[in-house]
């Protein structure tokens, strides 16, 4: 199963405002929880989410433990060119995951 669930329109008109949605399979462990044995569960969160499109970063979010497990980000951008829209999630250890969706932009 893919790590991420993306919602990106397949086509859009140039200049149209489109809504992008990305959910990532991650527990966003807060570091405040204890397991069944009473041991603290180590903090492990996605702290950075970015979206690259048309040669620039169109959205960035700094995330904290108050973001729910399976972090969902929904935002808008202006359709400019056909091509990939890339979503990147980075955890606090610097590990990152990338997912891409293609969009076709018509005149």
């Amino acid at each position, binding site marked *: 199963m893919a790590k991420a669930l993306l919602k990106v329109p397949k086509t859009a008109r140039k200049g149209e405002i*489109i809504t992008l949605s990305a959910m990532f399979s991650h527990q966003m462990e807060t570091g405040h929880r204890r397991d069944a044995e009473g041991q603290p569960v180590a903090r492990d969160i996605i702290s950075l989410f970015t979206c690259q499109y048309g040669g620039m970063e169109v*959205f*960035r979010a700094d995330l904290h433990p*108050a*973001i729910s497990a*399976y972090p969902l*980000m929904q*935002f808008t951008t202006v359709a400019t060119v056909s091509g990939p829209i890339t979503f990147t999630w980075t955890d606090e250890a610097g590990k990152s995951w990338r997912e891409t969706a293609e969009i076709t932009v018509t005149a």
Partner: protein
Amino acid sequence: MAAVDHSTAPSRRVVLAMLSATVASLDAGSARAETADMHAAIKAFAKGSPITKGKVKIDISPLIENGNSASMGVFVNHPQDAQAYVRKIAVFNEKNPQPEVAVFHLNPRSGTSRVDTRIRLATTQQIAAVAELSDGTFWSDQVEVIITIAACLEE
């Protein structure tokens, strides 16, 4: 067959009462951000600039059943183009262990300043959002959210 000696060992009921008292005290005393912490975090985000109430809108249900995952949207009543746009929207909470929730970075290509996500809320509390505009001004909104099942205390 020996009778169970109730004089030395605490009864199950007593143990349960003690446990729940401990949980209750942890609940109240653990490192929850106080209102002051939220205000300090907001001040740090605005770098001391004055913040005016208005323009920003937090879109969240006032009564939330499950604090582990509450849908929340924010937006700013402001243009989002090259001349004037929303640069950042930061979201804060009053009573989770840390006051920060997220900072969203926007630009003229965003088209709108609407962002939606899902957040954790440990208990009934205030949520604040502060927006930084391209002209350097800061605007805010604050709402109270009532939680019936809290986050952070499961398992």
